[in-house]
């Protein structure tokens, strides 16, 4: 563990902004994503989906489809292993990929076909006859908690009775009732947020090939090809080592590509047809049949003294998980008050099952909704005690030694510094016009590490192949190359970083939880250091001196001491050139559990203008301040901040899943699921703070997620300051804002 510790070293290339190594491929159209692979003899697969929100599947007749010319395989759950008696988690994953006896949401897959071309596959789907018995459904989280709600999963029980409440989680410390009694002001308010989707532009896509010998390959767009391999092999009864999974270039994931959705179906179709099978989701299928994040409902209560001290805080959170239990409410409960130093705090979260798609992780999963409730209430309390909202937050900000609301005590953290930066930012002083308002809010995310395995091989010309097993979701190859160059002391362009497939590296955890740069960065540092040890040994052989007399600096071996003062340094290139005669290839390898990722905080400022006659909100100016620990490639760190803020802005203003009375999703398209377009947004200013993570040699914390947390509340606070109405329902779509203005919701 000692080697994992932060050392305040001086950097030569870390912190510079070179072009990414995969850049030319991506600007010339050559880069290959999930749908860009083709195999000889490949079939096209399509999936038939349930038109009902909740139904018993009485019968599926595929006989007509199977007889059609050009149809090579048809599968239903009957063609997949029955995991009823096994691990419930695996059963749930497979049942979500293909309904078994019951459809649990509109869009739940019920059958799949593989045919020689797309028109044939479409026709075959039409020929499949499914007999449903429609059941009562529930899609709203509060309705699902009612006593008489239709039950989504009969095996899930509370107090011995079937219930849609899958889990109850509680966190906190102190005595909240006592704390509220001490407060001069107590504000309690309820909030709701609607369901949103990650909205990656690349739909799920894969090319599967399985032979009768049980060996297979899967080309897939994923955040975790090693995890996909394990899960697919387990679900289908394959040997893990016999399934090779290659991660294609990934066209966005944001958590949505951490789970399998239809890949096991492609493998099963290929196995049945004994031909390669390509399966690509349509955009409507992505919305209906992959995993969005939760819709929520919550009550938040905060009490403070007139001097600005918070005496107690409490939140009750109800998170909707889709039809399968997840950890989502729990994460909301853990993150909600993490920004603050609270003597008395309590959060209770309910994970609730409904007839909507299975929820997946979405960038800092569960944190943005809870932050919306908490940070809106923070502004209300500040207003009630007559304090500036930034000063109020500064006074109560968590710091080193604060006991976090989720339990442990913080080490060095960045919430205070981000708030100070906000307070001193020129944005805070800029003038506002009529119907304009400014808001700010804070956010927290944990960041993760995890299992990581990296290979570094040095060629005889001194160039370096770095192979990592975390996928490159947005410039990671550039960051990894910078780290390898830094450690070896060579220039950035001498390193070529590749993403290894599952046959070329040991297991790597999924690229989630902002872990990519933190953990693969750590493994790269250690792999490079291992290679440096080999380089020094080789130099020792070349010089015929003791390896202990050699120091590595600036990309060369330096012989130490007067005895060797006649020896000019041997560069990496020179040592590599002689490697065939000094023991063969030079490599460094590392496998590590990169735990101890540092927590990360962000504070955002935004200005909006609201049209009081239409309720339309425009974001005029936006500033992100976030702690990165250490920014390896600052341009891509800024990019993460900006992208996360943009997703938060979309969530705050217009994005939502709209369900009809019939339980059907009404807007599964980019036309009516409205993610921000270019003209909706201003430039998003960024300020990177670097408060080193003590558990990483470079101080890296991970940067990908935190900045999606504050925007919902920051914008809501800004809208409130612009037109004097407090929105308690996200998204703040024009009809909701106009209604609030008409109703005079000035609370």
């Amino acid at each position, binding site marked *: 563990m000692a080697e994992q510790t932060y050392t305040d070293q001086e950097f030569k290339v870390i912190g510079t902004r070179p072009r990414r190594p995969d850049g030319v491929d991506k600007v010339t159209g050559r880069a290959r994503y999930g749908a860009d692979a083709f195999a000889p003899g490949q079939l096209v697969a399509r999936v038939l989906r349930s038109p009902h929100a909740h139904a018993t599947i009485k019968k599926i007749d595929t006989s007509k489809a199977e007889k059609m010319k050009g149809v090579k395989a048809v599968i239903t759950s009957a063609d997949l292993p029955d995991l009823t008696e096994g691990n419930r988690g695996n059963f749930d994953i497979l049942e979500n990929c293909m309904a078994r006896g019951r459809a649990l949401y509109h869009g739940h897959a019920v059958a799949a076909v593989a045919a020689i071309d797309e028109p044939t596959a*479409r026709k075959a789907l039409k020929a499949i006859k499914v007999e449903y018995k429609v059941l009562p459904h529930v899609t709203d989280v509060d309705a699902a908690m009612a006593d008489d709600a239709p039950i989504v999963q009969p095996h899930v029980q509370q107090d011995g009775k079937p219930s849609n409440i899958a889990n109850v989680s509680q966190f906190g410390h102190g005595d909240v009732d006592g704390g509220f009694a001490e407060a001069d002001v107590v504000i309690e308010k309820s909030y709701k947020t609607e369901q949103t989707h990650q909205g990656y532009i690349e739909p799920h896509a894969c090319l599967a090939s399985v032979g009768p010998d049980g060996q297979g390959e899967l080309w897939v767009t994923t955040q975790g090809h090693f995890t996909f391999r394990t899960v697919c092999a387990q679900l289908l009864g394959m040997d893990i080592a016999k399934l090779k999974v290659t991660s294609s270039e990934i066209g966005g994931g944001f958590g949505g590509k951490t789970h399998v959705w239809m890949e096991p179906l492609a493998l099963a179709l290929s196995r049945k047809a004994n031909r390669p099978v390509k399966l690509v989701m*349509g955009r*409507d299928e992505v919305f209906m049949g992959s995993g969005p994040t939760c819709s929520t409902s919550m009550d938040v209560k905060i009490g403070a003294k007139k001097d600005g001290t918070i005496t107690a805080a409490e939140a009750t959170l109800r998170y909707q998980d889709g039809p399968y239990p997840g950890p989502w409410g729990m994460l909301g409960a853990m993150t909600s008050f993490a920004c603050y130093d609270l003597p008395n705090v309590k959060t209770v979260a309910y994970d609730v099952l409904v007839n909507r798609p299975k929820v997946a992780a979405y960038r800092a999963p569960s944190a943005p909704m809870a932050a919306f409730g908490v940070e809106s209430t923070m502004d209300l309390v500040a207003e009630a005690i007559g304090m500036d909202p930034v000063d109020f937050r500064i006074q109560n900000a968590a710091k080193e030694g604060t006991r976090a609301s989720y339990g442990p005590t913080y080490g060095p953290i960045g919430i205070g510094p981000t708030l100070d930066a906000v307070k001193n930012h020129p944005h805070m002083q800029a003038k506002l016009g009529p119907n304009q308002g400014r808001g700010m809010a804070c956010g927290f995310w944990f960041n993760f590490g995890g299992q990581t395995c990296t290979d570094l091989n040095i060629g005889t010309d001194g160039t370096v192949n770095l192979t990592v097993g975390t996928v490159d979701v947005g410039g990671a190859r550039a960051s990894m190359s910078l780290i390898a160059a830094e450690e070896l002391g060579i220039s950035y362009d001498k390193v070529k970083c590749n993403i290894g497939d599952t046959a070329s590296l040991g297991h790597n955890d999924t690229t989630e939880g902002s872990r990519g740069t933190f953990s693969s960065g750590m493994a790269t540092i250690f792999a490079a250091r291992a290679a440096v040890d080999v380089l020094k040994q080789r130099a020792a052989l070349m010089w015929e001196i003791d390896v202990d007399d050699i120091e590595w600096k600036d990309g060369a071996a330096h012989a130490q001491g007067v005895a060797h003062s006649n020896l000019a340094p041997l560069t990496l290139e020179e040592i590599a050139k002689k490697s065939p005669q000094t023991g063969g290839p030079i490599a460094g390898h590392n496998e590590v559990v990169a735990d101890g990722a540092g927590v990360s905080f962000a504070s955002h400022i935004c200005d909006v203008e609201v049209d009081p*006659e*239409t*309720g*339309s909100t*425009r974001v005029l100016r936006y500033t992100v301040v976030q702690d990165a620990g250490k920014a390896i490639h600052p341009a891509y760190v800024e990019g993460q901040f900006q992208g996360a803020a943009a997703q938060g802005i979309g969530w705050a*203003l*217009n994005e939502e899943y*709209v369900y009809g009375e019939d339980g059907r999703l*009404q*807007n599964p398209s980019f*036309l*009516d699921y*409205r993610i*921000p*377009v270019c*003209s*909706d947004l201003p430039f998003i200013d960024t300020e990177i703070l670097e408060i080193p993570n003590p558990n990483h040699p470079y101080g890296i914390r991970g940067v990908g997620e935190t900045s999606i947390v504050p925007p919902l509340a920051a914008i809501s606070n800004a809208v409130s300051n612009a037109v004097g109405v407090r929105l308690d329902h996200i998204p703040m*779509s*024009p*009809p909701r804002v*106009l*209604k609030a203005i*008409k109703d005079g919701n000035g609370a």
Partner: protein
Amino acid sequence: MRYEAPTSSKEAAKLLAGTKGKAVVLAGGTDLLVRMKMGHVEPDLIVDIKRIEATQAIKKTASGFKIGAGVPGATMGRNSALKKAWPGVVEAAELIGSDQIQGRCTIAGNLCNASPAADSVPAMVAAGAKAAVVGPNGRRTVAVEKIPTGPGKTSLKKGEMIESISLPKKAPRSGDAYLRFIPRTEMDIAVVSAGVNLTLDNKGVVKMARVALGAIAPTVVLVEDAAKAIVGSKLDEEALSALAAACEAACKPIDDMRGTIEFRTEVAGVLGRRAAKLAYERAGGKS
């Protein structure tokens, strides 16, 4: 499925009329191809009308403008004479989708798609546009508001297609405008929209007006009461309020994922008022 690209309207009408199954007209394709992709329509015959010369040009005629049914929005936007005469119609056409959609979408297609939210239709209705319809029994000219009869339904008979849309000659001291409300700044379907066309006398008093609203009823609605509310006025506050009230009264909208009844009704009045002011300014009126 067959694809044909005839070179005359007569030939196109013959193909459309002569097919046993489902025959569809392909102009810009920005609605048709989406419906095909979603499986909402499976045509047996696609008749691409863009190889017909008469559909390809914008012509200035003695009586106004003739816009071919295959002319995309982007081309309309580049026609300065058209833009000068009918800024509201051109702006409405240019609001249909992105630049990519603009490269293909046509106002004739927008009309035939028969969506109550079609952007160009309220502007065309306000402008008094007419459609030149070609069919197996020859040609006829129809006021554009008579083409859509309900969501996705038109009065065109089997074999009929629109060859061009005509706009009248711009009257002196007249102006038109189109405004719509969308949640984003681009790429959305109108939640509610308003087209206004008016002519002033030499004292700046409105002597003729046409007001059309979109997305507030099964078809685009020509609101005569709204026009009456401003005729004879200099578009003072009282007239504008009466116009807004008439717009609201004309609304029979639905609650859907794009907007509520309450919202659409309220904003119809707001947009009617704003569009009227803009048209008035364009007509040379000073408020």
